[in-house]
């Protein structure tokens, strides 16, 4: 029997004799009694209905034996044997034999049926359980497959997102470096501009005195006074206006102002050259010149704080985007200034070995611990307190060097400190 959930099988339900015995089980036995001389042999149910029966052609004779047939201890049928009275004893013994035979057949059949039932039940329930496990597994597999597929898409999305953010931050870092630079440069320009303005104010006052002197002469000449009087009056006015000191100062003021203006011109030229605002295209670049330009725009930060040692050798030109070397040098020099503190000595060295250009920027600061060397070029890596550094300076260097087709590594500088070594192939030339 199968229940609604497909898992219930009932074993050992009540059976009737008809369900347990076949004609081929019973009839040969009944016929055997006929052969032994009985008139009829019949099996009746409890209501007296005939279940199986066999009769000899000669009639039935008198009832000689009536025996109960038991199924699981319950009387379910009666065995009736009829025949001639003369064979009573023999046929009664036959009837008893038949009852035992039927009993044995019933028990064996029942045992077989029960075995089949329990076996079927167990096999079915095991099968149902396996089907359920299979369904569960399929479901779970489908879930995982979907997850895996989604995961790939999600990872792609996230990667693209990260790449965008990374590019954005690199750009921001470049802008931040330029901002820092701009502040320094503004200070640098402000200084000469200050004294030029001040000089111009003084000159304005001086010019008004010159004008007063000229007006005095013009007025006195109109009066037609004697030359001696005019000369004496003029001398008095000349001294009153302190023109001898003014005349001596003017030359200094003018030359100072011109020098200041030239300084501003030079700063602007450096900045322009460094930023290569006019040169977006690739062009042959002398890296030594770019290094000097960078030092020029950093002069305000370096002056009085850092000692520069140059060990530069002539280099072949490298064809590249001219903004890249400036980004590399600016960030490395700022890095050295940040970590080595005041009184730093920065050694700049360049050489060309015939294949590659090697530029080294070494400081005498604390150096980079070996354990951190693998990480310092990663974006956002910083040893400074949170909020002080963006952790992007060296990442910008790494990216720019990569664009030049080169490599950047960090080593120990002789005598302590960090030595950043940039190697750039000149194969492009």
């Amino acid at each position, binding site marked *: 029997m199968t229940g609604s959930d497909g898992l*219930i099988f009932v074993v050992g339900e*009540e059976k009737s004799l008809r369900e347990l015995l076949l004609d081929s089980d019973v009839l040969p036995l009944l016929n055997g009694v006929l052969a032994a001389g009985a008139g009829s042999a019949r099996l009746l149910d409890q209501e007296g209905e005939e279940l199986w029966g066999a009769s000899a052609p000669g009639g039935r004779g008198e009832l000689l034996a009536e025996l109960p047939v*038991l199924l699981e*201890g319950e009387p379910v049928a009666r065995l009736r044997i009829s025949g001639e009275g003369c064979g009573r004893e023999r046929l009664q013994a036959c009837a008893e034999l038949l009852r035992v035979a039927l009993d044995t057949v019933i*028990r064996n059949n029942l045992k077989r049926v*029960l*075995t089949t039932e329990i076996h079927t*039940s*167990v096999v079915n*329930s095991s099968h149902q359980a396996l089907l359920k496990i299979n369904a569960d597994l399929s479901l779970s597999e489908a879930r995982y497959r979907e997850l895996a597929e989604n995961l790939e898409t999600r990872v792609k999305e996230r990667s693209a997102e990260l790449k965008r953010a990374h590019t954005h931050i690199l750009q921001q870092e470049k802008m931040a470096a330029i901002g820092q630079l701009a502040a320094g440069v503004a200070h640098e320009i402000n200084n000469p501009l200050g004294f030029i303005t001040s000089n111009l104010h003084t000159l304005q006052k001086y010019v008004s005195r010159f004008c007063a002197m000229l007006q005095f002469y013009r007025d006195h000449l109109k009066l037609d006074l004697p030359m001696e009087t005019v000369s004496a009056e003029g001398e008095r006015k000349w001294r009153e206006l302190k023109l001898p000191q003014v005349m001596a100062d003017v030359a200094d003021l003018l030359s100072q102002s011109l020098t200041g203006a030239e300084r501003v011109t030079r700063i602007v030229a450096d900045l322009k050259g460094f930023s290569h605002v006019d040169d977006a295209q690739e062009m042959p670049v002398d890296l030594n010149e770019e290094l000097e330009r960078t030092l020029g725009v950093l002069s305000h930060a370096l002056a009085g704080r850092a000692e520069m040692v140059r060990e530069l050798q002539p280099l072949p030109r490298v064809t590249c985007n001219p903004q890249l070397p400036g980004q590399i040098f600016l960030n490395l020099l700022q890095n050295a200034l940040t970590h080595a503190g005041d009184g730093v000595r920065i050694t700049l060295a360049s050489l060309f070995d015939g294949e590659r250009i090697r530029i080294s920027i070494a400081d005498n600061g604390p150096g980079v611990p070996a354990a951190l060397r693998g990480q310092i070029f990663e974006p956002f890596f910083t040893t400074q307190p949170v909020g002080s550094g963006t952790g992007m300076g060296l990442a910008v260097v790494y990216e720019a060097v990569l664009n030049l087709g080169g490599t950047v590594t960090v080593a120990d500088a002789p005598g302590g400190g960090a030595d950043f070594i940039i190697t750039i192939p000149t194969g492009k030339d």
Partner: protein
Amino acid sequence: MIEYNEKERRMVLKLVYYGPALSGKTTNLLQLHEKLTRQGRGELMVLDTSGDRTIYFDLLPFFLTAPSGLRIKVKAYTVPGQVCHDATRKAVLQRADGIAFIADSNPAEAQSNFASFDNLERNMSLVGLDIDTLPLVIQFNKRDLPEAICEREIRNTWEPTGIPVLMASALRGSGVTETFGALAGLVYHRVDARYGLAATHGLSCEEFVGQLTCVRDETGEGEP
């Protein structure tokens, strides 16, 4: 779960002998078959075994007729105790009207007893039987073992549950009919409450249990 057919005036009751492997469930039925009178008792049906271990079940049927003419069949089953035959246990447990849990008195088997009882609780709930209301008795078998857990300890553990606990030595035939009788009594009350065995069918508890546990009269009829 009681199978009752009013029209045919028939009732079938199913008792299940549960318990851990080798605790003596089949031995209980063998002893009942040996000790009880053949009158109203069917033959013990031992389905095929594997190395003398039950793999399907054993069945000992009883038959009696109430004064009203109601024909009552009581079928006592065993389940296979080995853990691997759980599907068979579940199939046999279905629609049980009473359970005799045969526990092993060997202290080394204490864990098996608890594991099997857990398994009984789980399977009962799986086949929709309520352990709190279904007639249940516990038999601690193998009392003849010298190392058997002491009775006091057993009673301290099990009596708070309210489940009747009986001591037996099935191999020696003691406590077997008592266990069967105790379970039959519990089942009688449950059936009586629902179908009025005493009121409607004139069958008292003593008669019911008495007929089922009538010990063979040594001088009376024997096996054919």
